[in-house]
């Protein structure tokens, strides 16, 4: 019985309501999410103002990403040729399963027991950690927030700052449980422990695993950004470096890299640049005394190519994973990342998850987790029209016949009633009479059917007896009596600016 309840909650669509309720009941989470997103939002605004010409920058960034995605076949070919020329190995994997098996092969060849991971959303997308666990390979998340969550056996609630839902006491408890020592809930103490503990993993790991913020096609370089330095650590110390990259995370040249780097840090946190931005071109060279001896790059499709050639959704591949959309989304603000039930949350997650998983039935429900306010589009540094895409996802659901019968009937009725003024007038009249039993002191406080969703938290005003169009004749008479249009204003002396 309880097993069934757990399963349902994990279903992206079916469990959405339950996850929403849980999130809304979690005061600490809500405060943390609001505080974090306010901070990041403000940081971005300041950075935008300081930088100047933001709309021009957005347009340039959009043009570059568009160009790459439209020519992905060319640039991935160029990129992989160049990686191979440096002695690196490239594996093109169409499915997540293929990517996981590829990584396991590499790990096996290296007899790897310990993998140190830099932050990689793609590795979470393919559930790599779970598979490594099955094989008895220890995989440690080295991004501080991800490390905390790994110990707590939880998933991230924000793309950039994953553990915002944890307070210092909780983190202290998590570290205590791990180490057997007790820690004061003070940032300095906790960070100090993490530094020392993770350092050991950096030194001992057989494989360093990272994602890739931007690959550079012209040189075969991989760009990694981090503030903590863990990205540098895992791509420098272990003898084997494996990169897992979404196939669209590419720019043609270093010239273009400058543009996207300028946009990424500013949009994500309001910084000009993250502390560490590293461009890795192949494994260590002859004569070098540090750096990995082996470089492997796993290029992942996993549902991305399904968006190519789709005039509506291809643009979703332009995303640079800055999370600016999360930071302005009023829905995300209240429910946090877990509510979305998937690796990618917020507005980008609501669009990407159904598309990548090619699942409009369950994941497609995320398209409704939005009031279509458009803040995400406004914030996006590469101008992805996420608000339009959400509506288009809903349209796709309708076309696939995946919406409830009652809803389809309701909108067909709407088309009939509102497509014709006579029927519309009849409908308006009947609303007036139908509402009567529900009205208390001029309001409907307890709605029935779909209205119950409204009255759960609001009063609904009553429909007045006469619609505007029934009062129009009288209004016309009133205006005629006033005289010619404009005569009132000149007499009054109101300005025409």
């Amino acid at each position: 019985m309880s097993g069934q309840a757990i399963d349902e909650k994990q279903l992206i669509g079916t469990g959405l309501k339950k996850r929403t309720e849980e999130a809304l009941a979690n005061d600490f989470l809500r405060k943390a999410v609001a505080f974090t997103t306010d901070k990041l939002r403000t940081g971005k605004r300041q950075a935008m103002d300081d930088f100047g010409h933001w709309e021009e920058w957005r347009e340039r960034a959009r043009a570059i990403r568009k160009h790459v995605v439209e020519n992905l076949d060319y640039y991935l070919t160029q990129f992989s040729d160049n990686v191979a020329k440096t002695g690196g190995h490239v594996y093109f994997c169409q499915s997540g399963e293929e990517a996981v098996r590829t990584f396991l092969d590499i790990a096996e060849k290296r007899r790897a027991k310990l993998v140190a991971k830099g932050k990689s959303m793609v590795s979470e997308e393919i559930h790599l950690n779970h598979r490594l666990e099955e094989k008895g390979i220890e995989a440690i998340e080295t991004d501080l927030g991800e490390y905390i969550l790994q110990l707590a056996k939880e998933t991230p609630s924000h793309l950039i700052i994953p553990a915002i839902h944890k307070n210092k006491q909780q983190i202290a408890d998590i570290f205590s449980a791990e180490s057997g020592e007790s820690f004061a809930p003070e940032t300095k103490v906790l960070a100090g422990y993490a530094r020392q503990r993770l350092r050991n993993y950096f030194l001992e790991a057989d494989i360093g695993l990272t994602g890739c913020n931007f690959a550079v096609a012209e040189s075969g370089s991989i760009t990694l950004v981090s503030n903590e330095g863990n990205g540098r650590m895992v791509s420098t110390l272990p003898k084997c470096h494996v990169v897992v990259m979404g196939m669209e995370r590419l720019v043609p040249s270093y010239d273009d890299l400058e543009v996207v780097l300028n946009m990424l840090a500013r949009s994500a946190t309001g910084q000009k640049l993250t502390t560490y931005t590293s461009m890795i071109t192949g494994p260590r060279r002859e004569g070098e005394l540090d750096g990995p001896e082996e470089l492997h790059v796993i290029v992942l499709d996993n549902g991305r190519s399904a968006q190519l050639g789709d005039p509506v959704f291809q643009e979703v591949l332009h995303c640079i994973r800055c999370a600016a959309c999360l930071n302005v989304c009023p829905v995300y603000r209240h429910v946090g990342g877990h509510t979305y039930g998937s690796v990618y949350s917020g507005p980008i997650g609501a669009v990407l998850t159904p598309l990548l998983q090619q699942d409009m039935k369950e994941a497609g429900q995320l398209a409704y987790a939005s009031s279509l306010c458009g803040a995400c589009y406004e914030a996006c540094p590469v101008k992805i029209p996420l608000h339009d895409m959400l509506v288009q996802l809903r349209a796709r659901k309708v076309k696939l016949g995946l919406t409830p019968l009652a809803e389809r009937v309701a909108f067909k009725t709407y088309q009939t009633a509102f497509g014709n003024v006579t029927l519309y007038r009849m409908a308006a009249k009947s609303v007036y009479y139908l509402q009567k039993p529900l009205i208390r002191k001029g309001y409907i406080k307890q709605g029935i059917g779909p209205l119950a969703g409204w009255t759960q938290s609001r009063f609904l005003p009553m429909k007045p007896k006469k619609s505007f169009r029934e009062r129009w004749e009288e209004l016309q008479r009133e205006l005629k009596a006033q005289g010619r249009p404009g005569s009132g204003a000149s007499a009054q002396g109101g300005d025409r600016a």
Partner: protein
Amino acid sequence: MRVSLFVTCLADMMYPDVAESVVRLLHRYGCEVDFPELQTCCGQPAFNSGYQDEAREVARNLIRAFEHSDYVVSPSGSCTGMVHHYYPQLFANEPEWKAKAEAFIEKTYEFTQFLVRVLGVEDVGAYFPEKVTYHPSCHASRLLGIKEEPQVLLSNVKGLEFVDLPHKEDCCGFGGTFAVKMADMSEAMVCEKVANVCATNASVLVGTDMGCLMNIDGRLNKENKPMRVMHIAQLLEEGVKRGERTGD
């Protein structure tokens, strides 16, 4: 100048006073206002829920209704935004209707947009000595780019003490069917909006969209926090009357 009123189904059915204020103000500034009877709705409720075919038929009726109008003015940033932003896409596969839609878009304005940009009116000579805060509706500001017009109009109202609304750019939680379909999320959003509105200590909340205002007002009433919630046309009209009375 002939102007046709696009009343919107919401104002027509629920807020006829707002539409009347719009008409009176337009009349005041030399517009001969007519009301094409065939109009019903812009189709947004169906469109936003993904029912594009149904929305298209309702939109078709709206375009027909205004075929002979010179200017079309609406008291809703949301409905005007629907027309501007989505009609070309709705009729993308019908060249004849796409052209009609584009012609319709060319002449259709939201009320404050029309007042300020077309009629060139920034000061209606209003007197409204109250503390007022303004909620910028998402569609008006983001789909139509209406950022300054309402502020300009309000700034010229004598006696009006303007208080900025904290987190004003955050959606109020209406979103049409979102309010009932995702009731929990909508509730959280409207509660925060109401908290921000009350924090201003304003006596009046003003806006350009009755959908938003109905939503916020509905919550204010449930929380028993009475506050006047007005469409900007109503505020300006009342201000004009008060101005006339005091002879300002």
